[in-house]
């Protein structure tokens, strides 16, 4: 059967298999992507990120319910870390979303990072394209629990929700340099906990400082309280997501964001291919010269690239 045609028709098994191929680096995944690419670019890609224990999966579970209430089809990519020692992983995010298991309008896929840093797997972007082509209006990408620098999701998603919780004083400090500057919606989850007002004030101050450094007409990041485990606050989050999407569409930024993702993926793939090609061209002899210190790395790089430069013969 034709996996690309089947997934375009919305067949779940076909989409799931295409994601597997792309995750595994199977060449058939590339062929599928080539066929479905023209059908992509419609879905609203939403990132959900924050420190470990912030309740990201529970928040996603609530967002699925809220979006389904509005009749929208939702796909979720839930990323968990691969053990750098064994290559194995335990992927447990869907446990918190198990009440949606029988809903045909919901697709949930767990992905392991497989050595990729930045909070996502190498296949995450490709998987969003597959889900987009399957007609899911919303694709939620839940990252691994992240700290300061892992924010690849911000580049991937149209809208990123940063999840914070009361009492993570140091984490909030750490976030302000990285995540907090990047997200478009800030959610203070577990807002029934002690210390919520203090954390709220702190975050408000940070947002205020951030707003002051940006021009007029830019998106103003809302700070929303939620208790996801009780289903509280979801309505306001979805309203903020819709508002952000409208803001992006009105400014042309929605299409530009998608275009940047394509470009970044193209360059990443090209970079990997060029690197592999260079390694092959360098050959064992040149690598050995460097390893044994007979040739310094700079000269070796010069020698390797010399034939590729404009004006070079051969």
């Amino acid at each position, binding site marked *: 059967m034709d996996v690309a045609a089947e997934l375009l028709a919305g067949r779940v*098994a076909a989409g799931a298999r295409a994601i597997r*191929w792309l995750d595994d*680096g199977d060449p058939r995944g590339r062929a599928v992507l080539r066929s479905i690419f023209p059908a992509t670019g419609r879905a609203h890609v939403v990132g959900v990120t924050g420190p470990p224990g912030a309740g990201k999966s529970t928040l996603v579970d609530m967002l699925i319910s809220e979006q389904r209430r509005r009749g929208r089809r939702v796909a979720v990519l839930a990323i968990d870390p691969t053990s750098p020692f064994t290559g194995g992983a335990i992927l447990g995010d869907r446990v918190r979303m198990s009440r949606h298991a029988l809903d045909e309008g919901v697709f949930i896929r767990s992905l392991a990072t497989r050595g990729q840093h930045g909070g996502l797997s190498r296949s995450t972007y490709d998987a969003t394209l597959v889900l987009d082509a399957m007609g899911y209006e919303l694709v939620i990408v839940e990252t691994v629990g992240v700290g300061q620098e892992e924010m690849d999701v911000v580049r991937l998603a149209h809208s990123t929700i940063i999840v914070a919780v009361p009492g993570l004083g140091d984490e909030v400090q750490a976030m302000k340099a990285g995540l907090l500057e990047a997200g478009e919606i800030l959610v203070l989850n577990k807002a029934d906990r002690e210390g919520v007002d203090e954390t709220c004030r702190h975050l408000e101050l940070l947002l205020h400082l951030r707003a002051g450094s940006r021009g007029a007409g830019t998106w103003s990041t809302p700070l929303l309280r939620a208790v996801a485990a009780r289903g509280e606050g979801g309505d306001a989050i979805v309203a903020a997501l819709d508002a952000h999407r409208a803001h992006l569409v009105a400014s042309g930024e929605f299409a530009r964001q998608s275009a940047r993702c394509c470009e970044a993926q193209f360059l990443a*793939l090209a970079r990997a291919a060029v690197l592999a090609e260079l390694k092959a061209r360098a050959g064992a002899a040149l690598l050995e010269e460097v390893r044994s210190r007979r040739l310094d790395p700079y000269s070796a790089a010069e020698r390797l690239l010399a034939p590729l430069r404009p004006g070079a013969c051969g």
Partner: protein
Amino acid sequence: MGEAAVRPLRILLAKLGMDTHTVGITVVAHALREAGMEVIFTGLKQTPEAVANAAIQEDVDVVGVSSLSAGHTRNLPRLAQLLKAQGAGDKLLVAGGVIPEEDLPLLSAAGFAKVFTMGTDTRDIVAYLRAWWAGRGAAPSAPP
């Protein structure tokens, strides 16, 4: 799309029915992760329908069901049947837990390749799955 293809075995671990004992399945999950496999959990009190849907969405190679209460003679064949009906009959089905000897032929006939009864060493489970995976040549899956 990395330059080097990595293809770890993906296995869904599920609990069917009302039992809430998670020690066994948790120990198995950790052993499988240590063996380099990707283990997906579905949560407790799952129906065969929910597990079949999850197995298809996750496109796992193996579905492992833990059963520590009665119901396995009904639930497990139902799960196998649902997977087959949805074109996912290529997945290896294994079970574990409290399963009486006399039920084994029924589960085997339903499509369960192996039942790990109480007291099975996790190393035996790992060895079994590795041998099966190697036997398939860790072959890339065909179109569903």
